């Protein structure tokens, strides 16, 4: 069943990227906060969970939750100094913060093992389920995606979600209507952080090994591609985008088997396509594949 295994692996990765993309989508799509360093949150979730489980011997569930909290806390921390600034500054600050987290993981060997990475990260229930572990993990990820999707939909449909859209479309209007926009921005960075941290922790326990190399800025660009192609302010769009971009990314591997093109060229070409996809979607179909849904209230009163 090797092919089935590979397919399950791919679909598990779809799920992890879908979580990751949804976290960015909440910040960018709903609240209009440009975050070019989302990979930092992913990394924090992954490292926190991995280190707590491997080094402190805590249960995996505790690790995952701690990973989420660490990443959510980092969101607050990052949002604090920038909360009153224009969104351009967010873009730059987050881009830089993403690199700082990676540098920290690379340089603080006493804590993170530096470039060696964290090895032998335990997997949930690994002793109990043996043969079909891939399938088990895939189902686990699927359930997490479904739950997160549901919770995020509840959030974005709520007055909180409406406040986010108002900040995105007209920040001073929200202020004039009594919204504490700074607090809301901190909240949304925290929630986005929680979800990205969750994605990171799940990733770490799936890969069994993480190192700073996993968290290069490239990952952030990939998920940007996902939400722009899939559709901003639409969680289904984020999931669809994750599937499309990830499929494109992996399938170029297969193309390489049939078309004689150097692998370096292939990788460059792949990123050119993703860059151009971002640009042309924003010009010709800014809403993405799945557009933001209009919220209507049927006559119920």
């Amino acid at each position, binding site marked *: 069943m090797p092919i089935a295994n590979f397919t399950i692996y791919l679909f598990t990765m779809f799920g992890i990227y879908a979580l990751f993309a949804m976290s960015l989508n909440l910040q960018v799509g709903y609240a209009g906060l440009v975050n*070019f360093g989302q990979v930092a949150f992913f990394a924090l979730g992954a490292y926190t969970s991995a280190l707590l489980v491997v080094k402190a011997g805590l249960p995996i569930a505790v690790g995952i939750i701690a990973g989420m909290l660490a990443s959510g806390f980092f969101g607050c921390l990052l949002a604090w100094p920038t909360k009153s600034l224009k969104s351009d500054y967010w873009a730059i600050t987050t881009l830089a913060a993403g690199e700082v987290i990676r540098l920290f993981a690379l340089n603080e060997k006493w804590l993170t093992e530096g470039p060696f990475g964290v090895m032998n990260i335990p997997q949930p229930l690994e002793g109990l389920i043996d043969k079909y572990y891939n399938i088990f993990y895939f189902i686990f990820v699927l359930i997490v995606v479904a739950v997160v999707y549901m919770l995020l939909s509840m959030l974005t449909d709520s007055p909180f979600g409406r406040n986010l859209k108002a900040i995105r479309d007209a920040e001073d209007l929200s202020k004039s209507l009594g919204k504490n926009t700074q607090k809301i921005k901190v909240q949304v960075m925290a929630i986005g952080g929680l979800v990205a941290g969750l994605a990171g922790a799940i990733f770490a326990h799936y890969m069994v090994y993480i190192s700073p190399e996993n968290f290069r800025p490239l990952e952030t660009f990939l998920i940007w591609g996902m939400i722009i192609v899939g559709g901003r302010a639409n969680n289904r769009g984020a999931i669809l985008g994750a599937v499309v971009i990830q499929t494109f990314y992996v399938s170029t591997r297969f193309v390489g088997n049939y078309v004689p093109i150097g692998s370096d060229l292939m990788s460059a070409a792949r990123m050119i396509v993703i860059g151009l996809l*971002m640009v042309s979607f924003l010009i010709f179909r800014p809403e993405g594949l799945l557009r933001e849904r209009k919220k209507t209230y049927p006559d119920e009163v």
Partner: protein
Amino acid sequence: MEISQIIVNSLIRGAELSLLAIGLTMVYDILGFANFAHTEFAAFGAFLGFTFNSLLGINLLLSVVLAALLTGLIGILLDLSIFEKLRARNAKTLTMMIITMGMGIAIRNISRLIWTSSTKNFPMPLLQPLKILGARITRVQLGILFIAAISMVAFHLLLHHTKFGKALRAISDNKELARASAIDSAKMVQWMWFVAYSYAVIGGTMLAIEHLLYPRLGFDIIIPVFCAAILGGIGNPYGAVLGALTLGFAENVIISLDFGPLFSLGGLFDVGSLQLSTGYKPAISFMILILVLLIKPTGILGEN
């Protein structure tokens, strides 16, 4: 390290960054969005210059000028084909910013596709350094300082003694008014892209000459360049130069400082020498950026 050496190193770093920051700050100011592809075009232009110089055998200065002009033209073309339309559509700054990010990814990888990931080295004589006031400096670095100085004087003249410069300053001073007035702002904006990218190419080439040329060069300097522009106050080209020099100085000082005495609390504890790991060097500009944003987001020369 000798203080004279710190000053020389800071000057060189500052000179390279300022030519990049000038264009970034102009575009940011006039069009209202951060151009994340700015440094990528600098690297792209440096590659063009390298190609002219070492493959076609054109003289180095001429190659750089040609590359700068060509990249400037690309800037104009991109404005005509993309940004002008988006401005007409009143696209949000967020959209513009993400487009430049996407564009940056594409340009970076186009360079990779054309010139491959392997590094290029501008053919330069490798010479032992000269010693000036105790500081070591190479002839190439002296040349870089010289060209940067000339470029900055030229920019000053451009800003104050040409129709373009006057229009640019007018728009910068009062954007509402300029939009309403008869100034042909579309044409002016295109000139601005041209100047911004040409200067970026000069800066990028200087970086490539001093160090190395490779496709990710543009991405590696994006944070310092932004930091310099913000430090100097967005929209202020002189501020950008000052910001770049300040950043260069800060980077060099912080990395050579020994924090040991500070943490020993006046000799109470023996902590030995305590220096920031050089691995954190790229993080210095980020720390400065955060500090500026916290204390004075309008930059050193900016108004409140």
